[in-house]
């Protein structure tokens, strides 16, 4: 069988960074080939070259045995290569259907006018195939990241390509949607489509991939059949060492003070009467399906959105929080789930982003920047979180997705808050760094900080939390003690509603342990 | 070596200034000197004109012609010219200073007063009239407005100026202004348009509104002449722009020869209407 794609000795440099060094890759028809590696290993870069977005510096790309050049996204499309980007790449003012078919709109009246009806129809059909309940006419800018991600997937599917590249397609999805995606992938596979699958979720590997290629620092480390390799082998290929994992010890917190209490929080119909308590030194996991309202609760407490009603008490005293500024002053930090929109000033450098919430600490005479201190702070964060960047003066948008996420975390570490909301903190982060972050969360909690961790990854919730709150459709549907909770318990509480995909109930419990 | 005399005027694109330029070029040919002619886009740009004057001085001119937008603002540079022994000839309107050797200008106040007299005569000494002026703050704008308005106030108590509006000499804007004035004042008897663009605007506006009023214009140009011939415009004041340009260069040349100059060269103005528009004396000072 001729491989669909053979990549040999590919080199690619960016100013100050050698992103790919003699990288190799091979994709067979009807194969799901996982591409693994730490953040910044060069996975996205390799795939962007294959998709005609970047030009290679040196090396060879063969498509079905023919060596050729892929100068533009259009050329890649013509070769039957399509890609789901790691970062969302949508036109937020256009509708879902318009986004999917941009450049390939169905026409009528001899190609003069757009056939909007056919367009929506075609999009609806794809959504149908994905079991996705979404109006094709809804404007994309109003959707949550998860739904936008589903649109990206729908768009890639609409091409009916021979090679489908998926760069972390599930980072924003929950188990139900992931299950749905996997069944689509299996169908495509049966049709002989070659799929490149990039992910940091190790459990997905075993479930979907046939072979795994591991990259490190832009180089090819090895390619192994998934069935023959254990997750630990793959991890040690990725990070060059093995990781020890263990469940968090749940300390006895009953004697600790309640630092944050929320009573009857309400905001239109996305937050309905939410109350909870958070103790000093506690990690409270917030579980729920996509759109359950966890983000909304965190944003509301943080003062990012106005509240319709409810009380917030900090250390027993009622407070009013009208803006994020008030919240930060009261010692609350919020790490947003959408780093590009809400987390980072991507045009600014690493150091500037890290010290943004705590700039006041780095001023002399309340005015002048202490540049040296800022740089030191940034460097210590870079070291602590192993952020892969040429320097603290690199603009954030040139970093790989996972490293951008680490910057957002570094921001709030530098700020040193009493109460921290982490909204999907490990989204897009590699296994090595993930375990660093878990350690970090534990340390923070041990130091007496109170943490709310919102996550759609059940294993992560189960592993990290001391206590788990589950939300559904804007309501808190239950609280579980972490020691005794199981994925099934959480899902039961979380699915007292309709999910984004129609067959939630059977796809949901498909979660696994890593 | 050639004799170079830059002229810095108040404007450039308007036909009036183009006519001044024509006159200056004519004189340049007659006296075998080289001239350049420049002016800012609008009569409010005092500082831009100063920059032009400054650049002109840097070119080591033999003499300079200058139509000041604001004479005070230019004094430091004029002093510099004086120190460099470059004779300065003022044109179009005076410079409040004794540096210019002479001034070749129209008396705009008197000219506008003549327009007022004609207006009064044509509307029978009573009724409502209005003014469409090109500029609220420039010297020519102020002089023509005040020359007209003061004469009406002094001599014609029964005439009432109901509106004075400013249209930057922009034909279209002046047209719209005229239409709103006519709309607001159904009994209006006449409008004075204080420069070419304003006057054409008034003619256009009255025509579009289909109103018969007495229109008195200022300066000439093909459309104004045509409007007078067709009876849409009663008449207009003309200065002698070609003469202004010519006299300015001539005065500069004479100054360089060391001749003594009169303090004022009055280039004159005339009222023209259908009856005398073809009169050679008038035709000579009109431009297309």
């Amino acid at each position, binding site marked *: 069988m001729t491989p669909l794609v053979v990549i040999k000795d590919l080199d690619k440099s960016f100013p100050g960074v050698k992103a790919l060094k003699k990288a190799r890759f091979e994709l067979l028809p009807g194969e799901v080939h996982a591409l693994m590696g730490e953040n910044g290993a060069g996975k996205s870069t390799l795939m962007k070259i294959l998709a005609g977005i970047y030009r290679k510096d040196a090396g060879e790309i063969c498509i079905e045995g023919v060596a050729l050049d892929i100068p533009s*996204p259009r050329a890649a499309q013509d070769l039957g290569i399509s890609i789901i980007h790691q970062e969302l790449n*949508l036109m937020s003012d256009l509708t879902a259907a318009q986004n999917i078919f941009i450049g390939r709109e169905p026409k009528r009246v001899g190609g003069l006018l757009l056939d909007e009806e056919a367009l929506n129809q075609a999009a609806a059909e794809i959504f149908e195939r994905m079991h996705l309940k979404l109006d094709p006419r809804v404007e994309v800018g109003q959707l949550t990241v998860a739904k936008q991600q589903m649109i990206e997937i729908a768009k890639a599917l609409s091409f009916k390509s021979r090679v489908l590249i998926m760069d972390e397609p599930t980072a924003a999805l929950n188990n139900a949607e992931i299950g749905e995606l996997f069944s689509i992938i299996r169908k495509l596979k049966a049709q002989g489509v070659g799929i490149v699958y990039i992910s940091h979720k190790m459990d997905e590997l075993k479930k979907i991939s046939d072979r795994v290629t591991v990259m490190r620092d832009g180089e090819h480390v090895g390619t192994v059949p998934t069935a023959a390799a254990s997750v630990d082998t793959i991890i040690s290929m990725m990070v060059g060492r093995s990781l020890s994992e263990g469940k968090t010890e749940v300390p006895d917190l009953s004697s600790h003070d309640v630092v944050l209490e929320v009573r009857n929080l309400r905001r239109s119909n996305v937050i309905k009467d939410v109350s909870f308590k958070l103790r000093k030194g506690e990690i409270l996991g917030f579980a729920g399906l996509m759109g359950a309202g966890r983000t909304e609760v965190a944003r509301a407490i943080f003062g990012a959105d106005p509240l319709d009603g409810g009380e917030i008490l900090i250390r027993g005293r009622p407070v009013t929080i009208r803006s994020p500024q008030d919240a930060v002053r009261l010692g609350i930090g919020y790490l947003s789930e959408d780093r590009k929109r809400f987390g980072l000033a991507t045009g600014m450098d690493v150091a500037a982003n890290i010290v943004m919430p705590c700039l006041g600490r780095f001023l002399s005479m309340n005015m002048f920047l202490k540049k040296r201190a800022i740089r030191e702070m940034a460097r210590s964060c870079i070291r602590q979180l192993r952020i892969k960047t040429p320097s603290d003066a690199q603009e954030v948008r040139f970093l790989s997705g996972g490293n951008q996420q680490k910057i957002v975390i570094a921001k709030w570490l530098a700020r040193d808050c009493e109460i921290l909301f982490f909204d999907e903190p490990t989204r897009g982060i590699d296994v090595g760094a993930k375990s660093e972050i878990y350690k970090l969360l534990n340390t923070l909690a041990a130091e007496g900080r109170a943490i709310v961790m919102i996550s759609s990854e059940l294993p992560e919730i189960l592993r990290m939390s001391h206590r788990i709150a589950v939300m559904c459709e804007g309501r808190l549907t239950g609280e579980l003690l972490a020691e005794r909770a199981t994925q099934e318990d959480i899902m039961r509480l979380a699915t007292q509603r309709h999910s984004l995909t129609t067959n939630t109930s059977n796809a949901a419990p498909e979660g696994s342990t890593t | 070596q050639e004799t170079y005399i830059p002229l810095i005027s108040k404007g450039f694109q308007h036909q009036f200034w183009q006519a001044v330029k024509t006159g200056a070029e004519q004189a340049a040919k007659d006296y075998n000197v080289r001239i350049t002619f420049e002016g800012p886009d609008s009569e409010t740009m005092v500082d831009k004109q100063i920059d032009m004057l400054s650049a002109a001085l840097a070119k080591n001119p033999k003499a300079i012609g200058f139509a000041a937008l604001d004479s005070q603002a230019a004094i430091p540079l004029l002093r510099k010219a004086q120190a460099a022994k470059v004779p300065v000839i003022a044109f179009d309107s005076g410079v409040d200073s004794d540096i210019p050797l002479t001034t070749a200008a129209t008396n705009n106040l008197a000219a506008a007063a003549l327009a007022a007299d004609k207006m009064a005569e044509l509307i029978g000494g009573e009724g409502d009239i209005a003014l469409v002026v090109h500029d609220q703050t420039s010297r020519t704008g102020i002089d023509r407005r005040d020359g007209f308005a003061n004469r009406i106030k002094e001599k014609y108590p029964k005439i009432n100026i109901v509106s004075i509006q400013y249209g930057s000499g922009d034909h279209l804007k002046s047209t719209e202004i005229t239409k709103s004035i006519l709309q607001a004042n159904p009994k209006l008897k006449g409008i004075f348009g204080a420069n070419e663009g304003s006057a054409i605007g008034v003619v256009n506006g009255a025509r579009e509104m289909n109103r018969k009023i007495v229109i008195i214009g200022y300066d000439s140009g093909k459309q104004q002449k045509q409007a007078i011939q067709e009876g849409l415009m009663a008449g207009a004041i003309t200065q002698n722009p070609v003469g202004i340009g010519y006299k300015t260069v001539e005065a500069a040349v004479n100054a360089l020869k060391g001749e003594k100059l009169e303090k004022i060269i009055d280039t004159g103005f005339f009222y023209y209407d259908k009856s005398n528009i073809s009169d050679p004396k008038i035709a000579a000072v009109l431009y297309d």
Partner: protein
Amino acid sequence: MAEKEAQTVIKSAAFSQGAWQKILAFASLIALMAVFSVASENFLQPDNLIGILQATAVNGVLAVAATFVIITGGIDLSVGTLMTFCAVIAGVFLTYWGLPMPVGIVAAIAAGALCGSVSGTLIAKMKIPPFIATLGMMMLLKGLALVISGTRPIYFNDTPSFPLISQESLIGAILPFLPVPNGVLILFIVAIASSFVLTRTAFGRYTFALGSNEEAVRLSGVNTDFWKIIVYTVSGGICGIAGLIIASRLNSAQPALGQGYELDAIAAVVIGGTSLSGGRGTILGTIIGALIISVLTNGLRILSVAQEWQTVVTGVIIILAVYADILRRKA
């Protein structure tokens, strides 16, 4: 800029289909008209209303041209002088060369489109920021209009049917009680056609897409450079139409006119709710914006407000009108 508008937009979008919304969009305009009607009996005269429409014709057409460009997230400073340039071209063809009127009309529009395509090429291919590319074009065309015309107005006296373009009234000939001048008719035709093109054709789709996220469009395999050039070309062609309207209205091509018109045009677009950061906008909004400016100018003149106060009041009311619109969308 995009970020801070997100909030408002989210809420507005929910209603955006409603007819109610469409009527409310006129609210500021109607409120203004109501005030002026009460303040002066001369305001609501049919003659005056037609006058207002006629005063909107040129700025309205220019604003429509600017809308295309602004939706792509660009800006066009050259609309005013391009209009003049096209008028001069018409003058050269008709008066200097004595060619028949249709030729002059085609020449003016073609000249506009050609200049637009030059701007578009500078922006798309040479990556010159739209502000600079169109600023350069603005100056270039301002100079060329003077050079070509010989710094003299060109009159259309030899083309007796030329005033037809904007002054006569085709509608009035059919419906005598509605003597809407042809210039206004052209404005509405241009507006309706543009609105149709923007919402119904691939070209319109790409116009919005470019302003929304150009990179994403490019990554989808669309030839963004090509479409951007087309957008500026169309915008230039529409400026050519504006050139014909103003030339016909003044029965002459005035080469010195035009600078400053770009600000009025852009203002109309922005008052009409189109965001300068691109991606959203409507022709209806632009026309309302242009009408707001005309009504305001006309009303204040009718009231014989002193000119210096006219600008003060205009400034304040423009801010208030936009604020009212923001509140309306929030509500």
